[in-house]
């Protein structure tokens, strides 16, 4: 019989919940590898994507050449043909264009540099510190588990 507080068998609940998260992680990895999510689709089946409009959001510039550059999202790297002025390695950009199967690259039509990514990372660090400061104010550990203060 389940206890009045729910979670009849906490360890079982924990295993099921974490197992479900593991399943989601595995599905996500599979989705990325098969192009179901992420940007790998055009590389996996270039002909099917030939001539299609493709938009990339927050991809990191990894290498810059005279008339092309490489962007990366996760483990996938794509070549983009187009002007490189104003680009820097490590910056993140949003861009759009047409996929070309013959060159296995994206012909860039527009691009915007995602300003503020470095600030966002710093804010992330600050947020983590803030969280670590406030957590002990509201929680304490007991033999029966975490207890909410107040």
């Amino acid at each position, binding site marked *: 019989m389940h*206890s009045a*507080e*729910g*979670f009849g068998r*906490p*360890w079982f*609940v*924990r295993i*099921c*919940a*974490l197992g*479900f*998260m593991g*399943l*989601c*992680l*595995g*599905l*996500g*990895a*599979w*989705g*990325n*590898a098969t192009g*179901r*999510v*992420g940007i790998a689709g055009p590389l996996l089946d270039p002909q099917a994507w030939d001539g299609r409009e493709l*938009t*990339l*959001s*927050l991809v990191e510039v990894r290498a810059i050449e005279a008339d092309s550059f490489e962007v990366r999202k*996760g*483990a996938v790297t794509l070549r983009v043909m187009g002007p490189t002025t104003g680009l820097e390695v490590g910056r993140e950009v*949003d861009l*759009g264009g047409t996929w070309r199967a013959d060159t296995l690259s994206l012909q860039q039509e527009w691009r915007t540099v*995602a*300003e*503020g*990514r470095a*600030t*966002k990372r710093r*804010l*992330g660090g*600050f*947020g*983590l510190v*803030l*969280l670590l400061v*406030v*957590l002990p*104010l*509201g*929680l304490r550990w007991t033999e*029966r*588990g*975490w*207890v*909410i*203060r*107040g």
Partner: protein
Amino acid sequence: MADLVTHLCVVLLPGALVRARGLVLVALGATLPDLTARVPPIVLESVGQLVELPELQGWSMLHEPLPQVALCVALASTFAPEDRRRALVCLLLGVATHIGLDVLQDHHGWGYALAFPLHWGVYELGWIGSQATVDWAPWLAAATGLAWLVRLRSSLQGRAPAASEPSRD
């Protein structure tokens, strides 16, 4: 995704106006999607520069609502029995504020798979830019800090008369 400071302030700013037991858990919930989906790849990438690791993709899917519900359930199960339900509700509320704020953003169609793993389709409202909250964060943080200072001051003032009340002995 919005920045972590904005996510925390969205919870802590109104939290200064109410006396809510478990507010810290709402704040934790508001950071959970990023803690589970963004922090591990950053850590693994840093470690990967030192040791060769197989690249595991798919972390971003842990940001979606259903995996987050599972995580909240797992975390709530670590609480003392009388606090589990409250912990779960608070964590879920925090996660809801996080995903609600993120969905407002525009990622040029690369939104959030809100029903993953049941459905892979992505959705976003696209009302604000993906970097928009970076400009708000300092102001929100200042407003939150101020609100909590006012609250602490008023609660200290509320205690003061009781503390200075003359003894009846």
